[in-house]
């Protein structure tokens, strides 16, 4: 019973087992990488700031987003999903997170970027808490590897404040 088919089957099984092992090692090699990303956001202008007819506050702003996420990329990285969230506290919710902008970075060459944009998604509060509100802008990212576990991290940039009056 040591036929052509037997040998082909044994080889295939062993080859796939080793492939899984190699992929696991590639995934583990990611932990050798200690990334040092940086991000910086500048709020250039509050375009408008108003109360919606239903009573919720809405802001539109123009921002300068610059980030260097190149160190997140390793040989096992497929892409990086990144989003910028406004985070603040209200009496109702201890943490409000509102995504203002997001993007998919397909390669290391695109990981150092600079964008001048108004908020891509609407900045609407659940209520009327935004006047004079201090908020953080947080750069979140999710690294999607070719094999292995996805992981996420963030940079918190504190010290932003909305105006006291609607405009």
């Amino acid at each position, binding site marked *: *019973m*040591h036929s*052509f088919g037997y*040998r*082909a089957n*044994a*080889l295939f099984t*062993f*080859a796939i087992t*080793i*492939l899984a*092992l*190699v992929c696991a*090692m*590639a995934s583990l*090699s990611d932990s050798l990488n200690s990334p040092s990303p940086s991000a910086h956001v500048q709020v250039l202008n509050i375009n408008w700031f108003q109360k919606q007819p239903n009573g919720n506050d809405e802001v539109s702003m123009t921002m300068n987003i610059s980030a260097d996420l190149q160190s997140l990329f*390793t*040989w*096992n990285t497929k892409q990086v999903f990144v989003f910028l969230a406004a985070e603040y506290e209200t009496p109702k919710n201890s943490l409000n997170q509102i995504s203002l902008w997001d993007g998919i970075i397909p390669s290391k060459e695109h990981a150092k970027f600079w964008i001048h944009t108004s908020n891509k998604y609407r900045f609407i509060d659940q209520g009327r808490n935004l006047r004079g509100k201090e908020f953080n802008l947080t750069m979140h990212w999710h690294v999607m590897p*070719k094999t292995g576990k996805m992981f996420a991290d963030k940079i918190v940039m504190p010290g932003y404040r909305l105006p006291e009056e609607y405009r």
Partner: protein
Amino acid sequence: MDWQGQKLAEQLMQILLLAFAVVAFITGYFTASFQLMILTYFGGVILTTLVTVPNWPFYNRHPLKWLDSSEVEKHPKPQPSANSTSKKKPVKK
């Protein structure tokens, strides 16, 4: 493929695959290219298949020497006795 050939084929298969996996991982890691690692490894798998799966002549260098059929007459089959305790199946693979 004879007995020694089977052993050789099995060992060659395992050693070659492991070696190609190590080489593929190292090339992939140092060129920072996952694709290159996969290509190197699959190249290795195909080469290993060509070396170990077909019944190449060098797997038949230790053929079994079967007894001549005339030996059967000289050694007649033992007749089944009353107590069949020593009934053993021949080792067959």
